[in-house]
């Protein structure tokens, strides 16, 4: 009993999540030393509002990437949800919650459509979601033309009951967005790691042929992951609209790099079959902290933030493929042997 616990601990200490936790701790130390303001809880919690939507989407894009696919349309769906909420509320006089529900349903349909083409017609996920990102961004623009306000202004003036969704602070300090995110982490974790459905997602990613021979409806599983990621994008769209107080059609248009980086940094193999929700959650927080800390502590303009995120992505993927290379592995073996001797 005792031994198995220590084994577990050992295993955990060696795991990728531990590395991520260390990176996060390093971020806190470096940013905290550079500017003590960074460590102020109120400011820290507040800053999370700015990147929570990316974290939320990354959680479910993990599902897609575990099946071996990719989803680059999620950003477009964020804008689509946002503008649907705005237009149906302002110009069609719907109740705000009805508008939210409608937007989520539309997003799910969008996800289902892309997922259908990918799973049932066998088109590469990359192309379909590329087309999807054009299509849904285009539809969002068309919807925004229905509004009586100019599209670049966005739609604002939402009722307080809606705005409180992302503005509320639990205990006067913990933002509700963080709570929503944590709830979604739990849901995603249970779904992926504790249910039959989650096992199927992994199996489809490892070997779709074998999965289908063992009686799994692989196509349905693949399609469902795209629906999930679209719904998560819709949730992010709702939260973002509520937080900003403005509905715009181009919200989320620059999320793709951040989402993919978060998922890959979280330990998900882009070829499928491996990945986990906790890793993605940690990685997305790391990226968020980076996006908050660099401007605050090192006076780096927000336009430049694609550079560190891009470099992070490149370093992680190259590093991981190096670790997989036989040469590096041999070196590691030698190293271990020399240590043992």
């Amino acid at each position, binding site marked *: 009993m005792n031994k198995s616990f220590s084994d577990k601990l050992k295993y955990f200490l060696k795991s990728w999540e531990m590395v991520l936790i260390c990176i996060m701790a390093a971020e806190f130390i470096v940013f905290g030393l550079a500017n003590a303001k960074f460590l102020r809880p109120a400011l820290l919690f507040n800053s999370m509002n700015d990147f929570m939507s990316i974290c939320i989407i990354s959680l479910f894009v993990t599902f897609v990437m575990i099946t071996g696919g990719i989803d680059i349309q999620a950003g477009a769906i964020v804008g689509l949800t946002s503008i649907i909420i705005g237009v149906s509320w302002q110009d069609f006089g719907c109740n705000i919650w009805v508008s939210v529900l409608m937007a989520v349903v539309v997003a799910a349909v969008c996800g289902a459509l892309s997922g259908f083409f990918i799973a049932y017609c066998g088109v590469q996920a990359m192309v379909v979601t590329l087309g999807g990102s054009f299509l849904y961004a285009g539809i969002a623009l068309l919807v925004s033309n229905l509004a009586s306000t100019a599209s670049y202004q966005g739609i604002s003036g939402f009722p307080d009951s809606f705005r409180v969704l992302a503005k509320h602070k639990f205990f006067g300090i913990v933002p509700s967005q963080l709570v929503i995110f944590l709830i979604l982490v739990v849901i995603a974790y249970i779904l992926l790691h504790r249910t039959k459905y989650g096992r199927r997602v992994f199996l489809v990613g490892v070997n779709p042929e074998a999965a289908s021979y063992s009686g799994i409806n692989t196509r349905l599983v693949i399609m469902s992951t795209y629906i999930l990621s679209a719904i998560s994008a819709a949730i992010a769209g709702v939260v973002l609209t509520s937080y900003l107080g403005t509905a715009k059609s181009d919200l989320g248009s620059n999320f793709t*790099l951040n989402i993919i980086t978060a998922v890959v940094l979280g330990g998900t193999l882009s070829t499928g079959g491996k990945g986990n929700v906790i890793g993605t959650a940690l990685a997305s927080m790391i990226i968020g902290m980076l996006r908050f800390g660099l401007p605050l502590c090192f006076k780096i303009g927000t336009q430049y933030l694609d550079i560190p995120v891009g470099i992070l992505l490149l370093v992680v993927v190259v590093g991981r493929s190096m670790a997989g290379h036989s040469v590096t592995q041999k070196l590691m073996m030698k190293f271990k042997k020399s240590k043992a001797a």
Partner: protein
Amino acid sequence: MKKLLKARELSSFLFLIALFLVVGLINPSFLSSENIISCFNDSVVYIIISVGMAFAIFIGEIDVSVGANLGFTATVVSSMLRDGENWAFAFAVGILIGALIGLFNGWGVSVMGVPSLIFTLGTNGVMRGMMYVYTGGAWVENLPAEFKQLYTVNLFGNISVIFAVTAVMVIVVHMLLKHTKRGRYFIAVGDNPAGAALVGIPATRTKVAAYVICGVFAAISGIVFSSRIGFVTATSGNGYEMKAVAACVLGGISLSGGVGSVIGASIGAVIMASISRLLVFMELGSTYDNTITGVMLITIVVVDSLMQRRNAEKNRRQRLAARTAEAGEGGNN
């Protein structure tokens, strides 16, 4: 096999003509020769970037960093020209930058074995940020007038010199690809990487070369871009990577690699570049631009994939029938 390739380009060419005719039916003033020629003239940037993208797709990979590559090259070259540098030197620097970006992508994708979409997405982010670093977010303006006129010089009729040069270049590249040994490597590697390596084709080197070529073409399109637009902003070239992929797909290039031609890519690029003009003539306004692009892209890939699947099924049945009948006539592949 050759026939099949021809058919793929032909179908996208027919699609282009059909598109023009439909718009012509709705608005007859579209079908003036002047207008159609300017459709072609205006698509030069897209053609060049799509030809480069075609190389990345031939080998079965993708390069989504070409948009940032275009933007960064345009920024550097334009600011050099503005400061009165020698033109040839500025162009050479631009092309060198493109080649280096391509080399980096090629290293990551083929030597390190990172999935191409993810690696080039990272490069894209870095280069986009570098544009801000280089300019500090300011526009690059006041380019020399002669440089801006370069784009508008006409040859005969209304055909611009730059379009004519591009067209010749596309044909030359096409010839090199189809009729030289090294040119055929690209298609071979994309068609069957393991098989290509077995018959002695340097697969890794070919892939790196494809990325370098892709980067160089993106850089050239960046130079043409700045000549055409006349200024470069920090967001120049945003989204061009997606349009280039779409152009290749429209031009009949299969994203699984090994199928297609640069002529197809160019036709696809003309379609992509003409969409906003077509929409104006259909009195729809450019707000439909993205929607139409998305619908076209998805429709074409889905139809293509379904047709390929049907063909594969048909071939399989034919083989089966031939085997059961024990006749040689059925096995024609």
